[in-house]
């Protein structure tokens, strides 16, 4: 059974988190993400959960990382300026393999920019923003329904791969209101607890170690320093560092196909759109208006790790169009994977592309 609701995207995000078992929220108010925190502040205390408004975004992500080590599913939500502040501790979560979910309702930047307007300007920052090499998972919802579903999914992925998982939404999706089907229950895959006798950072075959929850007698030492499989600092041994960093990257990149979530529409088309987040809506309108099957569409829900294999489904493609609310951040990634031209269609300022704008791009490259 499902029930129908008429929700705002940010409300759906919070509800998806709660349905997935999130019981800890630490954060700091920032437009246009604040409704996520406000909804959690209402709901969590009544669900035996914890909501804490921290003194800044640095403390917000620190608190959820600390909470996660007690075994709880934990989340924060923010937007551009707060996201920038979180970067050091995002690297800490990657290095210590701490499952956590970070929601970014993107707004126009750089700096304070456009607090109430949509953008997708943090797509590379979420992948590469903290210093050093690591890998993460990023999901991009394009509807209120997906705000719910992908937030819930983010917790499973975070626990499965022990990485920070980003819900990279934007102001349009966060603030729009539309109909949503809310399921009775969301499937939850629990975090894999460390088995006795196994070292706390000794990986299984999938390169992911079992989780040594605090308070269970593991006596685990967690550090952002380069560490060996015991978790002990080992910061001047080149071999240990290289092996650790390669594993942090490979555990996610090797699982690219399993993590990937996308739709392939009209795979025989010669002109193909690739989009994620709010611009998906405009492409959908274009396809609706031109139902002749001549326009292909790779519609991404997972952006990182980038599902490069999905592009190969479009074997007849002569050109890819990439409408984004940034200067071409993912278009550049796509260029790395294809031989044919990639046309970046940047849109800055907070408005979506209109269908005529996308149609004009198709005409210009026919």
């Amino acid at each position, binding site marked *: 059974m499902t029930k129908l609701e008429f929700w705002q995207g940010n409300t759906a995000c919070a509800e998806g988190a709660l349905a997935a078992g999130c019981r800890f929220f630490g954060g700091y108010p920032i437009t246009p993400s604040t409704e996520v925190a406000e909804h959690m502040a209402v709901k969590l205390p009544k669900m035996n959960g914890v909501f804490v408004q921290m003194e800044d975004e640095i403390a917000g992500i*620190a608190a959820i990382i*600390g909470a996660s*080590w*007690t075994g*709880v599913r934990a989340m924060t939500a923010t937007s551009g300026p707060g996201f920038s502040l979180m970067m*050091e501790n995002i690297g*800490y979560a990657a290095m210590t393999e701490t499952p956590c979910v970070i929601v970014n309702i993107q707004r126009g930047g750089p700096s304070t920019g456009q607090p109430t307007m949509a953008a997708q300007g943090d797509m590379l920052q979420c992948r590469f923003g903290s210093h050093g090499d690591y890998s993460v998972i990023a999901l991009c919802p394009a509807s209120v329904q997906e705000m719910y579903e992908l937030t819930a999914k983010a917790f499973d992925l975070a626990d499965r791969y022990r990485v920070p998982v980003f819900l990279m939404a934007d102001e349009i999706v966060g603030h729009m209101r539309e109909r949503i089907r809310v399921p009775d229950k969301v499937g939850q895959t629990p975090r894999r607890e460390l088995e006795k006798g196994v070292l706390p950072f000794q990986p299984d075959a999938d390169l992911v170690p079992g989780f040594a929850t605090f*308070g269970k007698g593991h*006596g685990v030492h967690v550090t952002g*320093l380069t560490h060996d499989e015991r978790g002990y600092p080992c910061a001047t041994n080149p071999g240990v560092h290289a092996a650790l960093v390669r594993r942090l990257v490979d555990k996610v990149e090797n699982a690219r196909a399993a993590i990937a979530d996308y739709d392939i529409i009209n795979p025989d088309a010669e002109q193909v759109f690739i989009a994620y987040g709010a611009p998906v809506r405009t492409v959908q309108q274009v396809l609706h208006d031109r139902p002749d099957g001549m326009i292909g569409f790779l519609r991404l829900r997972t952006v990182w790790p980038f599902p490069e294999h999905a592009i190969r489904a479009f074997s007849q493609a002569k050109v890819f169009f990439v409408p984004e609310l940034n200067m071409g951040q993912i278009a550049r990634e796509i260029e790395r994977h294809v031989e044919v031209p990639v046309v970046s269609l940047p849109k800055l300022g907070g408005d979506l592309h209109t269908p005529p704008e996308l149609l004009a791009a198709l005409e210009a490259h026919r």
Partner: protein
Amino acid sequence: MTFEDWFRTDRLPHIYCAGCGNGTIINCTLSAVDQMGWEKEKTVFVSGIGCSSRAPGYIVTDSLHTTHGRALAFATGVKLADPALRVVVFTGDGDLAAIGGNHFIHACRRNIDLTVVCMNNQIYGMTGGQGSPTTPMGCLSTTTPYGSDEPSFDLCELAIAAGANYVARWTSYHVKELEKAVKAGLDTPGFSFVEAMTQCPTNFGRRNKFKQVADQVEYLKAHALLKAKRDRMIGQGEKVPDDAFVVGELMRRNRPAMGVKE
């Protein structure tokens, strides 16, 4: 059990320099924890970055060695998520008062149920002796080569003003008093702050005319002014020496606290 049972012996020897006071403070803290009868399984040590913050790595419990200045924010998450865990934070003057100052103020304000032991060596030791917010005026460091011209922070006054339930200061010389203060902090619900003034012969002492480790410990002893004596001096209109620092239990109260297990 004794404090020695709390060490992660396969991690020894430690990285501290000869003559460093941090080991003394760790011993005092672990003695106090041991006397409380806390279970190792349910005790967590958290720290930031710096010499002080390496301490949890040598302790056998679950431990979280975090980013510079942020230990209290991480510890807040641990404690609120599972109030059954006893959480002790090791930090230093640079970690707590400079980069972590805002988290310090707000952890005191929340009066969250943590015990914080601050090893104040008045210098950045790990990075090689730069001036910190507690470096006394006139003292030499690699970044105050002509003598520090900034007034220094009184961390205990800050903790009291911001709302901590328990505040005490001792030195690496006053081991019995320090141990008792930490124990009182562990025993007090809410935020407990124990500042331990300590010697750093490698990076503070040798630049500031302390030829021997003992000279610096002697200095701490000689300039520590008991709170009762300080109050008496003020009451009698006597001048409190500028280079003295107050030691003793400076605050014990019962403000509303967060994260206390019911």
